[in-house]
C-alpha cells in the first residue's frame, strides 16, 4: 500500500501533493488496479493532515477516473497510468543512475542537476513541438 508524505515547504497545496503522489505511484506501476488506497483515517493518523484534504484529493482522483470509492469499504484503483513503456523503465533508470554518478563526479550538486535536467527536458520538448 502507498504511504503518503507531506512537504509543507514546497508551496504545493497538501491535497495536490496527495494527488501527485498517487499519480506518481500509478505511473511507476507501484500501485495496481484493484489495490486499495489507505483510508482517510489511516492517512490522517500517519501524517497529521486534515481529513478534508485527503477526501478532496481522493475526490479529485475519482474525477480523473483513476480510483473509485466503494461505500463502507474504501477507495480502490480502477485505472493505472503505467503503459507499455513500463518494461523500459528498468534499463532507463539504470542509465539515468550512471548519468547521475557522472554528474556528481563532475561536481554538480542536486540543484544544478535538477536545473540542467529541467532545462534539457524543456528545450527538447519545445523542439519536439515545433
Amino acid at each position, binding site marked *: 500500500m502507498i504511504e503518503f508524505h507531506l512537504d509543507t515547504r514546497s508551496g504545493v497545496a497538501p491535497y495536490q501533493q496527495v494527488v501527485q503522489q498517487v499519480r506518481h505511484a500509478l505511473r511507476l506501476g507501484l500501485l495496481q488496479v484493484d489495490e486499495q488506497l489507505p483510508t482517510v483515517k489511516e492517512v*490522517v493518523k500517519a501524517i*497529521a493532515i486534515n481529513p478534508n484534504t485527503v477526501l478532496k484529493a481522493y475526490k479529485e482522483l475519482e474525477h480523473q477516473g483513476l480510483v473509485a470509492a466503494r461505500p463502507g469499504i474504501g477507495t480502490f484503483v480502477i485505472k493505472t497510468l503505467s503503459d507499455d513503456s513500463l518494461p523500459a523503465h528498468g534499463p532507463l533508470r539504470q542509465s539515468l543512475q550512471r548519468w547521475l554518478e557522472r554528474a556528481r563526479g563532475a561536481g554538480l550538486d542536486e540543484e544544478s542537476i535538477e536545473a540542467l535536467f529541467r532545462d534539457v527536458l524543456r528545450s527538447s520538448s519545445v523542439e519536439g513541438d515545433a
Partner: protein
Amino acid sequence: MTAALEAHSLGKRYGNKWALADCSLSIPAGRVVGLVGPNGAGKSTLLQLAVGLLRPDVGSIALFGEQPGSSPEQLARVGFVGQDTPTYGGWSIRDHLWFGAQMNPGWDQVLAEGRIAELGLDPRQKARQLSGGQRAQLALTLAVAKRPELLLLDEPVAALDPLARREFLQGLMEVVADQRASVILSSHLVSDLERVCDYLVVLVDSRVRVAGEIDELVASHYRLSGPRRERGGLPGNVEVLDERHTDRQSTLVVRTDGQVLDPSWTVEQLGLEDLVLAYMTHAVGEDRRPRLEVRA
C-alpha cells in the same frame, strides 16, 4: 446550513482598550479553522467569547445558531481546551475521566479509555507526573470524550516540542475524521496550520484582517516583482497588501480574483506562510513588529 460560528460586529473591551473589535465572521460547519495572529491580537478573547467564558460588550456571537452558554445542551455541544492545556496535578488520569463523566451527559467513556490506552498511559498516573505532551493529550481526551460538535483549542501546541506537537495534531485530526467535529484552533505557529487547517482567520490588533477557505486564499494572492516603479497602473481589482522597493526592484504582495497580465511583472503564487505574514506586516507600524514565530 447553520454556521459553526457566526459573529456580527462582535466586540470585547477591557477598561478602555478593545481586546476584540468589530469582528464579523461566518465559519461553515465541518472546517478546521486556524486562528492566527501575534500575541495579544485577540485570539484568546474570541475563543473565550465563543465558549461563553466572556460576554460580548457589543455585537453578537452564536455557535450553530445558539448563544454560547445559553443552555446545558448548548454547552454539551462544545469542547474547549484552554491555553496550557489545564489539568489537575494531584488527580490521576482516572479521576479526570470520572469527573468528565459526571459533568457531561453525552460522555463517551469507551472513547476516553481507548484514547488513554492508545497513548500508552497508565490511568493511575497523576497529571503532574505526565510530560507536557501527555498532559495536552489528556486535556484533548477530556474535550473530545464529550463528543462535541465544535472543538475550540487555545494555543494547544505552543508549549510542546515538535514530536509531541505532531502527535497532538495526529490525535486531533483523527477526532475530526471519526466524529466529523468542527475545530477552531488558535496558534502563532503558521507551519502547523497548512497541514491541518482548511480555513484561516487572521487577527491583528483586535481586528479580523482576513478570513476564508485556505485554498481560495492561496489561489488569490500573488507576489509581483519587477523593475522599480510606483504601484499605479495595476487594474482596479488588484488590492496591494504590502510593497517593498529597492533602487532597482519593486516587490508587491497583492490579492486579486482576476489575473495580473502585465508582462513586466514576474508573478508568483504566495504560500500560506507568506500570505499570513503579509497581512500581519501590513497592519502594524515599523516600530511594532508582529511577534509571529515561523518554524521550518
